[in-house]
């Protein structure tokens, strides 16, 4: 029998290691057509004509445009502004205009080149940092998708009185997800039901998009998640678009249609992390105590609203950093550009704002001539102090211990001395070490979880096994395993006694999207409660292990064809309060806390940075499965290293032009050192097994720590990422 703390092996691990996991492009689909997309060549303008070339026999093709959309021509999300297929105008290059399907994959992709979308161009808005002129307005009166202000205390007064005011401006670039499995979706018609199956994070987002776009009843649309080869947020909102496209073609064709993007198309047309411009003005006393933080944030939203308002919201809530400051004003906007829309990406706005506040902390330390470690130590939130939104932190976590463990594990002080010796002895290489402290709130922001009102369910089968039903999916992060572990641990069952139902909207309740580091903390907790509900129905809440199994078998004997289940609906933890209008209160049920130390060597010949060591220490409530948790941190840290040092989207006309893996480079195994991970634990009463969310946390800290280390090594102050060799050379030569 397993105790609650015993780790379960990754359930689908062997299947993945042996290549037996069937991703959407791996499924045999007899008689299916292949779909492809004709896209706008222009960043902005009116569609004058769509011309079908005479060299193709169009009779052989299924062709769909906006007139074929049975429902509303927009992708259901926060606002209704993004068309499924452009009708009269386009707002970005690669905006979908026409869909084609054909039996031959090769033929359909070839045919795409024979459709010409002719656009009467208007001047595009391509730089989000510059306010648009009158002829550039395309959304509201000012192209601002969302404007949020967080106010605490009196910033103006505090800045006016502060002995020292430090100003800094910071910029972060777009980042491509590079999930290894490209986006893909299959749609078919089953009686009067439209079914889509594909690579996705949020089955019920896709479901809602299909009911709206196809104008169908909820029970006439079915969404099934296929094994998903990585998401990182990239399969949060975009799959809704792709599912609509596949479904429209399938409806038109009356046959299954498969749409699988290749890497170039995927990189060019899907979402990226929002580029950000962030300005800080910080009032401090001469010792470094924070007196006032004024932060201005601008995110590039791209051509449509999509998720920008909520990405901005999370970014702003984290913009002050994990520090106590009585006077804070954070003013942020997400604005339109005629770029491919930016979207959800692991961290969801927080990595950008934390990069800025952490670099600002280093700048403050530099200007005051004090140690950046001590500056952070002095200002880290203590029990009973509050965040920028006034959320009082009283979680039993020791944020100073997190910092100290990171210093200790990385031998921070010893390394500083070592580096001084190394740098004196080497003419063409420089070493440095840098630090960041950060936090990440898990679950939906503010009232988001209440609004979602997630439901999780467990069912007991006649053979005594338990089936877990949620809409939360496996995409590599370990959902199947951790849900198994939660149930087997709680009920004293073997892992094999626990089954996880496919995320199929015809089968599972809506437990919300697989985003926001919420799967274990929020949904895992619902599963725990659903298990308790189920066991209580057997009349003895203490039943566990073989006794429980036997009781289930007996129950089913007494109730042939009966359903024995347990259900739980989300309830906010007691004492949580959030005011959406004033942006005050408890933004998240819990924050995880972390510190990252990075050590680098810069080659002064090429200004290329090599990462020598990374240490990430985090307080996460409770580690349920060490291997999975470490894997999340290590993978997130390496993704952050990529964002900080090498991953650069090169833009032209609002579209990524280095849309190949040869030209958009992510770290290889040879570019990163082992990532050293340590966890501290202060159990969170309202997360499964005491756990807080950790999936996004590792994206937040490494970039500023690396930039700091590079700054120390080279005597520069990198304020923009990625710190490519080209950018660093400019800084270094100018220094």
């Amino acid at each position, binding site marked *: 029998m397993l105790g609650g703390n015993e780790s379960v092996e990754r359930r689908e691990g062997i299947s993945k290691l042996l290549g037996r996991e069937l991703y959407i492009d791996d499924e045999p689909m007899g008689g299916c057509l292949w779909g492809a997309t004709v896209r706008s060549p222009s960043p902005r303008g009116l569609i004058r004509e769509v011309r079908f070339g005479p060299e193709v026999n169009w009779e052989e093709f299924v062709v769909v445009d906006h007139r074929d959309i049975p429902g509303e021509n927009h992708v259901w999300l926060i606002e209704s502004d993004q068309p499924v297929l452009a009708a009269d105008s386009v707002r970005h290059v690669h905006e979908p205009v026409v869909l084609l399907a054909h039996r031959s994959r090769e033929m359909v992709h070839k045919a795409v080149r024979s459709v010409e979308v002719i656009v009467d161009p208007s001047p595009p808005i391509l730089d989000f940092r510059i306010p648009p002129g009158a002829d550039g307005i395309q959304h509201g009166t000012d192209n601002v998708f969302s404007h949020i202000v967080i106010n605490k205390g009196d910033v103006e007064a505090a800045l006016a009185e502060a002995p020292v005011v430090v100003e800094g401006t910071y910029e972060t670039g777009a980042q491509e997800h590079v999930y290894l499995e490209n986006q893909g979706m299959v749609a078919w018609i089953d009686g009067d039901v439209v079914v889509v199956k594909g690579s996705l994070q949020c089955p019920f987002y896709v479901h809602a998009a299909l009911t709206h776009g196809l104008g169908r009843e909820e029970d006439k649309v079915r969404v099934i998640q296929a094994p998903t*080869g990585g998401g990182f947020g990239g399969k949060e909102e975009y799959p809704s678009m792709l599912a609509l496209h596949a479904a429209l073609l399938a409806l038109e064709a009356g046959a299954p249609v498969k749409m699988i993007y290749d*890497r*170039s198309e995927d990189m060019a047309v899907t979402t990226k992390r929002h580029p950000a411009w962030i300005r800080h003005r910080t009032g401090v006393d001469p010792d470094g105590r924070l007196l006032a933080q004024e932060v201005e944030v601008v995110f590039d939203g791209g051509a449509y609203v999509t998720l920008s308002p909520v990405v901005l919201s999370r970014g702003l809530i984290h913009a002050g950093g994990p520090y106590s400051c009585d006077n804070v004003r954070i003013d942020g906007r997400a604005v339109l550009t005629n770029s491919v829309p930016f979207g959800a990406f692991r961290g969801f706005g927080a990595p950008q704002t934390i990069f800025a506040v952490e670099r600002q902390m280093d700048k403050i330390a530099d200007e005051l001539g004090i140690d950046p470690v001590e500056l952070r130590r002095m200002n880290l939130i203590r029990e009973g102090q509050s965040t920028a939104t006034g959320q009082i932190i009283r979680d039993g976590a020791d944020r100073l211990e997190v910092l100290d463990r990171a210093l200790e594990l990385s031998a921070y002080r010893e390394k500083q001395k070592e580096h001084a010796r190394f740098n004196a002895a080497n003419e063409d290489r420089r070493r440095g070490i840098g630090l960041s402290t950060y936090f990440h709130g898990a679950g939906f922001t503010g009232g988001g979880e209440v609004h979602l009102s997630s439901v999780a369910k467990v069912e007991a089968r006649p053979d005594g096994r338990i089936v877990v039903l949620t809409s939360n999916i496996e*995409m590599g992060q370990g959902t199947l395993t951790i849900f198994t572990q939660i149930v087997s641990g709680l009920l004293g069952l073997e892992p094999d006694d626990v089954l996880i139902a496919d995320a199929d909207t015809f089968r599972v309740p809506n437990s919300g999207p697989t985003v926001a580091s919420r799967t274990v903390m929020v949904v895992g907790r619902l599963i725990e409660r659903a298990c308790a509900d189920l066991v209580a129905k057997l009349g003895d809440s203490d039943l566990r292990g073989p006794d429980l199994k036997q009781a289930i078998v007996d129950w089913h004997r007494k109730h042939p064809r009966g359903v024995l289940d347990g259900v739980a609906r989300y309830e906010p933890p007691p004492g949580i309060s959030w005011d959406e209008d004033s942006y005050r209160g408890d933004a998240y049920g819990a924050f995880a806390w972390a510190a990252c130390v990075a050590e680098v060597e810069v080659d002064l010949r090429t200004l290329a940075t090599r990462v020598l060591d990374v240490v990430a220490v985090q307080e996460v409530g409770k580690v349920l499965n060490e291997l999975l948790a470490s894997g999340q941190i290590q*993978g997130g840290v390496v993704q952050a290293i990529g964002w900080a040092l090498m991953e650069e989207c090169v833009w032209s006309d609002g579209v990524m032009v280095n849309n190949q893996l040869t030209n958009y480079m992510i770290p290889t195994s040879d570019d990163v050192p082992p990532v050293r991970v340590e966890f501290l634990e202060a159990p969170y009463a309202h997360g499964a097994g005491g756990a807080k969310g950790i999936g996004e946390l590792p994206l937040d800290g490494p970039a500023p720590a690396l930039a700091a280390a590079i700054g120390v090594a080279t005597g520069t102050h990198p304020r923009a990422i990625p710190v490519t060799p080209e950018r660093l050379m400019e800084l270094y030569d100018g220094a």
Partner: protein
Amino acid sequence: MEHDAREDTVRVEFTLNGKVVVVYAQPSDRLLDTLRYGLELPGTKEGCGEGECGACTVLLDGMPANSCLVPTYQVRGRTVETVESLSSEDVAPLMRTGATQCGACTPGVVMTATWIRRHPEVLEAHSVRALMAGNLCRCTGYDGIVEGVEALVVRESDG
């Protein structure tokens, strides 16, 4: 639609996972597609189609190759091994170190790892990190993969 009459198929006989197979390939076929769609062995994945990510790695005459860059006609008379040739036992050490998360890069990782396991002498001149650099992974941060390959090699040398 248009059909190029000169486009003859090529008879390709080769040894696939220990068995002799014959396929009639189009000259334009990539080994990756022949495996996935022709021979219904979808374990080999396409990640980039340009030889950069290594998700499509197979062993060609025992050496790792990106099957997206191999014309099918070039495997005539040669030996191809895919992830489907392996057993649970072969990959057990990779399981224990967390070498797989989303699984999309995994078959390629496993094939390169298999080559290293069979040729541990390559580790005399190159690190595991350098040898695995042709297999991009976006999930693990590589620690689970590197430790898994090391565990495979150790197990092999222990007999």
